[in-house]
């Protein structure tokens, strides 16, 4: 039996989210005695994967053939399915991000395994499996019981942190039996920017609203975001007015994100905006109006003019990071 962790391969690298997910699995392992194993798809060096051992993973199946480098959800699902059957996975864990959202539901159907996304904590019970998940766009928590023999979960990232627990790790080449690798999906064009941090993956998001006053002033946020290695986001009116691209808009009708730190700068904090960011670990609000509703949901707040605070804050972070 095993707890199987889906390790996301980002062009030959793994991110902190995979280490966090492994830490989560390892905490489950301490309660259940079931070992933590992983599966990774596409070309990636073994030396990169061995870092997972530090967080308690004992084995990784690597479907490392280059033909699998492009994600085809249907094919990736079958690879994870075969790994799950080979390692007799009782639990399969995915990160709660685009890849997890794309593959986990498909796997749920194939394995007839109950799937719980947006899990907020470790299980409160294992037999039966009971977990708490986010519901009603963050306005409620639901307690859910999984009825099936195998179970799939996607914990919300940033909720658990990393915990080291060194283990001997074995990396095994895995050759899945796939009938049509590129199948029915043909990539006709790619616009990739390997340096850009995607909003969905960013650990730090610097977000601006109408309080920034103009499209030009967003370069202050870009500078802060560069200093922090984060990504820029915005409120809906900012995207609607064309100050920022539509895919940066977060909220009820935009992206749903859960970074480590969310800076809400010149954003009033309308409920539709908050619906997209309430999963963030720490919300920092900067607003000229001390009564702005964003302060009801923020962890830290500063009252004042964003156009003067943001450059100061950028300098303060630069100093802090150079001292580290």
């Amino acid at each position, binding site marked *: 039996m095993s707890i199987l962790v889906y390790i996301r391969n980002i*062009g030959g690298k793994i991110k902190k989210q995979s280490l966090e997910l492994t830490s989560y699995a390892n905490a489950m392992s301490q309660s259940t005695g079931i070992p933590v194993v992983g599966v990774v798809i596409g070309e990636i060096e073994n030396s990169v994967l061995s870092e997972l051992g530090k967080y308690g993973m004992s084995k990784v199946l690597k479907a490392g053939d280059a033909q699998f480098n492009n994600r085809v*959800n*249907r094919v990736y*699902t079958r690879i994870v399915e075969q790994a799950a059957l080979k390692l007799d996975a009782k639990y399969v864990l995915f990160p709660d991000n685009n890849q997890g*959202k*794309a593959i*986990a*539901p*498909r796997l*749920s*159907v*194939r394995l007839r395994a*109950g*799937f719980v996304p*947006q899990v907020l904590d470790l299980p409160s019970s294992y037999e039966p499996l*009971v977990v708490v998940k986010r*519901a*009603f*766009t963050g*306005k*409620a928590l*639901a*307690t*859910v*019981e*999984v*009825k*099936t023999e195998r179970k799939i979960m996607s914990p919300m990232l940033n909720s658990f942190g990393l915990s080291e627990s060194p283990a001997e790790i074995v990396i095994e080449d895995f050759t899945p039996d796939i009938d049509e690798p590129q199948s*029915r*999906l*043909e*990539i006709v064009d*790619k*616009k*990739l920017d390997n340096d*850009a941090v995607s909003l*969905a993956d960013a650990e*730090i998001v610097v977000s601006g609203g109408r309080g920034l006053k103009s499209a030009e002033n967003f370069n202050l946020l870009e500078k802060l975001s560069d200093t922090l290695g984060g990504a820029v986001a915005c409120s809906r009116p900012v995207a609607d007015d064309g100050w920022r691209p*539509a*895919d940066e*808009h977060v909220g*009820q*009708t*935009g992206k*749903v994100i859960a970074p480590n730190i969310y800076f809400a700068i010149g954003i009033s904090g309308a*409920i539709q905006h908050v619906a997209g960011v309430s999963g963030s*670990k*720490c919300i*920092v*609000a900067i607003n000229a109006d001390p009564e702005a509703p964003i*302060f*009801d*949901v923020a*962890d*830290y*707040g*500063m009252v004042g003019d964003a156009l003067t605070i943001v450059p100061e804050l950028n300098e*303060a*972070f630069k100093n*802090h990071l150079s001292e580290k």
Partner: protein
Amino acid sequence: MRILVCISNVPDTTTKIKFTDSDSKLDDANIQWVINPWDELALSRAVELKEDAGSPVSEVEVITVGLAHTEPTLRKCLAIGADKAVRIDMEPLDAYQTAAQLDAYIKNEDFGFLVCGIESGDYNEAAVGGMLAERLDFVSVSSVSSIRFEGDTPIFQRDVANGKEELKVNGTAVLIVQKGFARVPKIPNMRGIMTARSKPLQIIKAVSKSPLVEFKTYNTPPARESVKMVDNSKELVERLSQEAKVI
């Protein structure tokens, strides 16, 4: 080309949420029901495609799995511009059951592609689209941000970790969409509202299928600690680093 948009009927984001029956059920007494915002954007774009003379989309259908209280939402979809609505008559208990019902209908129909929202505003599963694609053995394309046509072939654009990709699918695809697919929801006009009354709303019996997970109880999240106000940037950086330990 006929396309299908899957519609989830959810409480409006601004509605206060309460629970009854020992916190096992949503108290629907004062709920304002709306089209799930992502589904509304998906439908808006679908209707735009139909109205665009250059696109091959000729018919837009919407479907929901839900009881009679979801009908006003379906009528609104018709007013926005859908040509036909289908309601599968059951209260689904989990995403798996919902996908099974949709599958039972769709497998006997012929659609150019299907569209689901990224997540519903009630259970927040982000699961129905993927489950449906697997049941039908269709390609699923997630994080779809736009769509265009080359002749009759749709070209989908999706967001990936470090950029965007454009792709073609051989066969039917299930698109899972978020913002960008349409910028703003389409507001029904008077004519739309009038014609919606006479458009077909078909009610179908549910197939029997058990759920895989059980939603047992709900509660409200613990109140966030109240905000800590800081005076200057230096103090903010220090507290984020030493107190919150996030940097």
